């Protein structure tokens, strides 16, 4: 079945699996995971990019042609996110930025208000802004209004592997936000959970912790990629709705219309 490409800010992507690069035991596992999964968008925290020393620079492990999505990890408010994004662009990391504004080190929940402010400023400066957010419809609308190129609602807490705890709220975003792609980010711990998000109609998924912590990261990255493709195809094929009772494939009353019962 042919799928239309994922389009973000006019750029098209075949893969709907996006990979985060934190927590890996070594950088070559990042490279292998990108290769095995076919990920075309990879996010890297600017705070972890060592542009000056070049030794063990994470960017050396990201193949050419991959879209680098620099994230603003460490930003506690919109001003800091804006400064980090500008620094990323000045450092040669391009203008695709994932806004992360987190002012709670215990739960790592994103601050939607500050995220909207940062999105507005950076979009106006020509950045392609993909904001990480708590799945709140008002905030998602505000992000779209502010110029976001996609919205990235969390599935559950970062690094928790809890899956789609925020499912019903993500569903609302999928139903209501059609201007930009919805990319489910954070908390996805297993390929089945990413498939579930895609079956609901999410446009893409971003996964990090589960892959980084797998015994075979590249193997799990490939599994995620396949699950995401599978979920996408299921969504496009329009999965029949679940019924409360069994529905026989040969209806019980067909005979009424097939034979003359009076004879």
């Amino acid at each position, binding site marked *: 079945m042919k799928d239309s490409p994922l389009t973000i800010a006019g750029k098209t992507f075949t893969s709907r699996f996006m990979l985060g690069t*934190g*927590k890996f035991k070594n950088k070559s596992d990042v490279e292998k995971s990108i290769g095995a999964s076919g990920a075309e968008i990879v996010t890297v925290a600017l705070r972890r990019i060592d542009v000056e020393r070049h030794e063990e620079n994470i960017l050396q492990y990201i193949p050419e042609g991959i879209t680098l999505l620099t994230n603003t990890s460490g930003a506690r408010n919109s001003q*800091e996110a804006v400064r980090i994004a500008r620094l990323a662009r000045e450092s040669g990391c391009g203008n695709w930025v994932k806004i992360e504004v987190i002012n709670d080190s*215990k739960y790592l929940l994103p601050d939607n208000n500050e995220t909207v402010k940062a999105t507005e400023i950076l979009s106006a400066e020509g950045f392609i802004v993909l904001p990480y957010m708590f799945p709140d419809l008002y905030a998602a609308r505000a992000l779209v209004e502010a110029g976001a190129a996609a919205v990235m609602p969390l599935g559950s807490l970062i690094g928790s592997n809890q899956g789609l705890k925020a499912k019903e709220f993500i569903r609302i975003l999928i139903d209501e936000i059609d201007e930009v792609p919805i990319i489910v980010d954070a908390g996805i711990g297993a390929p089945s959970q990413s498939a579930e998000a895609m079956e609901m109609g999410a446009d893409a998924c971003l996964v990090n912790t589960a892959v980084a912590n797998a015994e075979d990261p590249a193997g799990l990255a490939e599994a995620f990629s396949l699950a995401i493709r599978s979920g996408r195809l299921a969504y496009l094929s329009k999965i029949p709705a679940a019924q409360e009772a069994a529905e026989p494939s040969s209806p019980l009353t067909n005979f009424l219309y097939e034979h003359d019962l009076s004879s």
Partner: protein
Amino acid sequence: MISLPEIKDILNNNDPAFLEGLARKSRTLTQQYFGRAVSLYAPLYLSNYCSSHCTYCGFQSKNRIARVRLTPEQMQSEMKAVAETGIESILLLTGESYEATPLSYLKEASTIAKQYFSSISMEVHPMGTEEYRELFLSGVDGITVYQETYDRGRYKEVHLSGKKSDYDYRRDTPQRAARAGMRHISLGVLLGLSDTVGDLLALYGHLRWMEKHFPGVEYSLSFPRLRKIKGRAFAICNVSDLDFIKILCLTRILFPRVGLNLSTRETSALRGHALELGITRISAGSNTSVGGYHLKSAGEQEPQFDIEDQRSVEEIVEYLKSKDFDPVLTDWRRIENSV
């Protein structure tokens, strides 16, 4: 959330099977939230002038040691020497002298350190919010301040004079630093000074209070054990390796996302095991003397405490890689701090 009496029970339980379970849980949580990343930093002592009399410290005012304070030129050469090892996260330390190392001196140090390091923390005399704000604006991102012990009686016994003898002022230091905008705050107790269980309960309570009131700060905890200084013991540390590991594991379970630091006070062997269980940040290639990296030969040095793990940064990086850890030297990109 686990209750305080439960914490006490756990710390008093020495059943090996129980400890094994604790260790497994701690390792799993550490893996989940930090992966295999281990951050590296180095301490750099700017001055050993001190006006406090703390009975357990090599820098205390009554110790007849050579007092040294780095000049700006000396800071440059010391910092350059550390930066050349690959370290990007620096902890600048002084003794607690408001006269010898005033705010202006610390700001100067921070301005110089910005040329060499992407992240600067300080472990210096406690200050007020306004002064911390000035330090933050000058480029300091983190403050390390240990209460040493939360036992008021014991605190008074070991902190005989100087500003440090003011228990309440020291205890409220982390909140003043947080209010000033600091990104990282490191708390801790000096194990061996007083009753360990009591100190841990108080430390956990302090951290929970800080998390609630200043959620945006990244916290880390340290559990330094009292060490000898130039071979002499100033106090006996009664915290065994078993207790120490139990403390690390329990802390990780209670605070899954909090950084746990381990200094070169501990042996390389113990550090290796602790990394598998919950430690996420270690010092590397450390020297605890003023001018110890470049300016002074080993014989001239007056360390704050003796270090056990003598490996260089390069050796530690290679060791970490061989154990499937990802040594993280760069964990911050300096942005202009503002309030």
